[in-house]
């Protein structure tokens, strides 16, 4: 079976760490590049974390590119529960890891051309790098097979009543992405709760043989932020196995104008455009409604075996 070529756009981030770990352990994916974006921490901090994770997981041969230090229009507003470094209090060893000579959007474009229409993007931070890529390269939208977004919500938000952080921080970039018409998979806040994982849960899933460095980092991170769902990892899980989530197909609009609601992912749940509005022309986004705790834990168990010493 041909592996799915993917680029992972990330702002590590505790849950980004586990998403990356899951993605890297799966035999479904051929990771072409990892690109960084500010969100859980500044670009500088998350890029440093990305270098450390890259080294820990021995990602040799995968491109690692830095993205935008700022969002497209809204001011940068770093606030998260991911601690001073973005990975709790952990500072990973980055010795010898070099960044790509190109920036995120250029790497995305170059890899899209190479992959001949097969490239998938997995974005688990604000959508700034993707927004810039589609802005700089309008023809890119004909070259991407699928975009998976951790972000948005069909219910309440976290940053504001209806704004989920990844969309809220850069709604304009999100609008660019959602307006491309490329098939989008949206895993938002509403779907995550069943997959909350505590430290005790995770320790039970770790095998004896787990590499001691990896074990130490995982344990520190789950200690720091355990009990929450690892949003980004749930998102990767959702595209590994279609049975992982219950799905709905909605037209989705991103609000960019109103300070009260910007970053809201407005889902046309009731067919309003078709019955009352201007017709049902909007591309359908595949939206996760809920997620599967048992399957998620199984995926983690299997993932850990990939990192045995």
């Amino acid at each position, binding site marked *: 079976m041909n592996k799915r070529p993917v680029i992972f756009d990330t702002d590590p981030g505790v849950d980004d760490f586990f998403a990356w770990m899951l993605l890297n352990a799966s035999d479904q994916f051929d990771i072409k590049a990892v690109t960084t974006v500010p969100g859980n921490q500044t670009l500088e901090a998350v890029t440093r974390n990305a270098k450390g994770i890259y080294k820990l997981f021995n990602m040799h041969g995968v491109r690692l590119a830095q993205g935008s230090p700022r969002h497209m229009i809204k001011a940068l507003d770093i606030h998260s529960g991911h601690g001073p470094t973005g990975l709790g209090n952990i500072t990973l060893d980055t010795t010898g890891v070099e960044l790509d000579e190109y920036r995120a959007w250029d790497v995305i474009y170059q890899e899209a051309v190479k992959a001949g229409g097969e490239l998938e993007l997995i974005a688990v931070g604000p959508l700034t790098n993707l927004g810039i890529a589609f802005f700089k390269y309008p023809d890119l939208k004909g070259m991407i097979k699928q975009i998976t977004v951790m972000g948005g919500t069909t219910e309440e938000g976290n940053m504001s009543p209806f704004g989920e952080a990844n969309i809220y921080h850069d709604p304009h970039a999100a609008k660019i992405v959602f307006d491309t018409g490329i098939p989008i998979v949206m895993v938002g806040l509403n779907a995550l709760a069943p997959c909350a994982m505590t430290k005790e849960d995770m320790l039970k899933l770790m095998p004896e043989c787990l590499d001691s460095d990896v074990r130490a980092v995982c344990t520190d991170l789950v200690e720091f932020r355990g009990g929450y769902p690892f949003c980004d990892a749930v998102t990767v899980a959702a595209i590994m196995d279609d049975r992982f989530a219950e799905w709905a197909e909605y037209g989705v609009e991103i609000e960019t*104008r*109103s300070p009260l*609601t910007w970053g809201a992912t*407005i889902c046309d749940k009731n067919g*309003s455009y078709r*019955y*009352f*509005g201007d017709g049902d022309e909007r591309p359908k986004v595949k939206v996760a409604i809920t997620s599967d705790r048992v399957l998620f834990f199984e995926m983690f168990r299997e993932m850990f075996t990939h990192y045995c010493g």
Partner: protein
Amino acid sequence: MRKIPLIIDTDPGHDDAFAIMLALSSDKLDVKAITTVCGNSTVENTTQNALNILTLLGRTDIPVAKGIGKPMLQPLDRSGGIKVHGESGLDGPVFGPPACQPVEMHAVDLMAKIVRESEEKVTLAPLGPLCNIAAFILCYPELIQKIERISIMGGSVFSGNVTPSAEYNIFVDPESAQVVFSSGIPVIMHSIGSTGSARVSDDDIQVWRELGTNAGNFAGELMDFYKLSSKDRGFSSYNICDAHAVAYLIDPSIYETFHTYVEVDLVGQFTRGQTVADMRTNEGSISRYYQTQHKEFVKNCYVVTKVDRQAYVDLLTDALKKLG
């Protein structure tokens, strides 16, 4: 037991007719007046419809006052109303000539007169766009404190109807809605989502038809037409949304609510007309958000989150029985 003095502000409307029947059948409510507003149809039509309903029920003693026919800042968008309620706003049932006339007083002035003369605080149940209620608040600020509460059918929390984010009554006049939500008067919001979770079935309607009462037959005729738009949208059960605003006043135990801050969005490209309710429970996020927005977190609204469907239907059935 003292009855609750109530003014129903309405744009009948099939579901409005159910709300009116429910209110008139209840010994807990004292319906002081029915005021009319544009919405489901023009205010001329909705006034006519109100008179027809009262005539049919033999309650021509209830004063009807005609209110505002145009939303605060925008023309009346009738397209949704016509789709759901037909050209007249109450297509389907055939009425004879009404046996009553509207009073010669603006709806807003009649509201003020009733509120001023009432010994107790008065409750409002608006079932249409909030033009009249906003005008009352703007014209008679000294009477605001004599309003007990406003039980509104309108608004949207997690999804709308006319747009994915906005519900019709608010969408038609978002500015008026914001005047009402920010007035300081406690609001109970029966959104399109909560009302839509308590839909009536064909079996329920059959029960009403078999009551053998005038009101039961009328209910059947109303539903014959009102069903059509629901079926067009793929529903096999029906949302009699407006009657919730009244049912809550009769038996609040049917409803669960969440007390929070609601603001109406006036500027969004996709969210204009959304009643933005803060449904978050994480107090840390909430307090940080309101600080950064330089706003105060004021709990101005009881958002209905859950409805006991069967109890609601039973209340309607009892009303149709009692009215005869």
